[in-house]
């Protein structure tokens, strides 16, 4: 009785329990994930690190609801998504997760604003509202005046900003960024990290997958993977401030 009267604890943003993923390659079973249990809270900026083959990509696919675990449990918000399939997962991705990819993955020959609109199209948002929200997000990433440019007419950094606007447009629970600076030069990388940090300071949860310590240092928490297992869960007490570093660089130049 008393338990019910107790204040309900705020659910974790992400809770995984004993998450495993096994691939069958020929006669061999490959364990890409060997039982990962981790909690991530609302508003955290988390980096997932590890060498290739460590299972961090598989882990990211699980978090992004792109793939289903072989066993274990995954709760996103208060929803148990590890048992969902197909179109239900698509719906979860659409409304809860904003993806940012290393190669941007923008639709070619399609205006920036229309690229940003894409998730809203699948959410069934009416045309006029779609356009309004997309323009708002482009303004937020500083590309208001580039709304009608096609990806080929934009620089790499600008393309990644469009992709971030696209990730934000559905007001998701978290941004899942897979090597977002992998295809960018160091200065543009800093700009993108500054943008992600600003979004995080605004309350957006960010999960960043990277193999570069250089990038991971901007996160306040670092998860290290090796051989399909979470081997280190470290809090970064003094994360880098990308905006301040940009300023410093500008002054030095």
């Amino acid at each position, binding site marked *: 009785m008393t338990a019910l009267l107790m204040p309900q604890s705020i659910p974790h943003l992400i809770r995984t329990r004993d998450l495993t993923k096994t691939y069958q390659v020929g006669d061999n079973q490959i364990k890409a994930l060997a039982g990962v249990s981790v909690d991530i809270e609302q508003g955290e900026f988390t980096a997932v690190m590890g060498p290739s083959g460590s299972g961090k990509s598989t882990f990211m696919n699980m978090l992004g609801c792109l*793939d289903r675990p072989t066993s274990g449990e995954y709760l996103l918000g208060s929803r148990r998504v590890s048992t969902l399939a197909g*179109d239900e997962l698509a719906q979860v*991705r*659409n*409304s809860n997760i904003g993806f940012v990819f290393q190669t941007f*993955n923008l639709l*070619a020959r399609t205006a920036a604003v229309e690229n940003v609109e894409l*998730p809203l199209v*699948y*959410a069934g948002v009416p045309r006029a509202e779609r356009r309004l929200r997309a323009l708002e997000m482009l303004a937020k990433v500083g590309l208001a005046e580039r709304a009608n440019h096609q990806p080929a007419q934009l620089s790499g950094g600008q393309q990644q900003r469009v992709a971030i606007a696209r990730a934000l447009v559905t007001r998701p629970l978290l941004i899942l960024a897979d090597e977002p600076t992998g295809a960018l030069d160091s200065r543009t990388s800093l700009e993108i990290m500054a943008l992600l940090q600003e979004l995080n300071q605004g309350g957006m949860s960010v999960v960043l997958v990277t193999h570069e310590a250089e990038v991971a240092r901007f996160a306040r928490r670092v998860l290290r993977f090796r051989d399909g297992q979470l081997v280190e869960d470290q809090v970064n007490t003094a994360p880098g401030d990308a905006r301040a570093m940009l300023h410093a660089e500008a002054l030095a130049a």
Partner: protein
Amino acid sequence: MNLLGLLRVAMRALAVNKLRSLLTMLGIIIGVAAVIVMIAVGAGAQKRVEEQIRSLGSNLLLILSGTTTSGGVRMGFGSSQTISEDDAAAIWREIPETMAAPALRGTSQLIWGNTNWSTVIFGVTPEYIDVRQWELAAGRIFDAADVAGATKVCLVGQTVARQLFGGADPLGQVIRVRRVPFTVIGVLESKGQSMMGSDQDDLVLMPISTARNRVLGTGNLAKQRSVGTIWVKVAEGTNMKAAEEQVRALLRQRHRLQPGQDDDFSLRNLEEVAATQEASSRVLALLLAAVASVSLVVGGIGIMNIMLVSVTERTREIGLRMAVGARTRDILGQFLVEAVTLSLIGGLAGIAIGIATAVGIAEIAGWRIVLSPESVLLAVAFAFAIGVFFGFYPARKAARLNPVEALRFE
């Protein structure tokens, strides 16, 4: 995503590879155009057969003079004059539902002024006009009195009128047939070509008595009452088969044929002949359409081929769309609409080209064509069905991609 949105995405995707889209459509364009042309030509041929049947006259029986056997050699029909004007009169008298018209046939040279023309002469009774459904373009027909008195009057067909008189009015002119002067009292309406392709308008009709006595009568023919053919028109609504049997029985009785003995005449139901021709022309039209639709199927395979290429090329796009929330049916719909758009645009272009070609054939080759809205609708429906059928497999392949692998695809 709604249909309009899918259509917009499809149009954009097709516009990216304009040449490829056009070449892909080409199969459907050719297929649809071929189907339209073939149906138009087939229906035209059928229509012509129908008109020829009508020009023949409906509910007709044709009695031809029978065969003779001389010394074991069987001669063809008409080699012996076994039927006569009396047979015709008897049929008319004994079988109330019929009207019988005997006809004597021969060829002769016609002379008018300084022109001349060789044509077919028919010696007939006034009923012949009615039985064969000839219409008069001008003048009058001869009557029973003309037949009784063997007057020297005649009617000419359109071809004769044109060839012999040129621009002059044939009515009242006197032409000479085997040195006998005939007054032209009427001109027949045109009937055009017969089913066999001969000119039905190249003829002269005159009273059977005059023809026998003055023009065609040589030797025995003048003395006898025999004729080459008797046309029997059976009243509307009468059972043709029963009428045929009645006529046959009557003639056998008049010719004193024993049971078991062969007919000495030939009795043909022209509608059966016509129906057979009509059926064969319909089969031909169907065959043409079937052959043409093979090219439609080939066009469909072309669409499937290009859609499969397109799905592979756009694997990453599909992966991204899935990542941002596209469901199976969204991806399926996108590629299906793209395939159907290809086939429908191709279909519409094919209809335009098909109609233009059919009209061109009618103009240049002079063939009869019939363009029907049904054939156009059929072509559109077919193009749509091809798009759905051949677009489904590539679309399903796209929709079944694994998002993780699709995103990683290089």
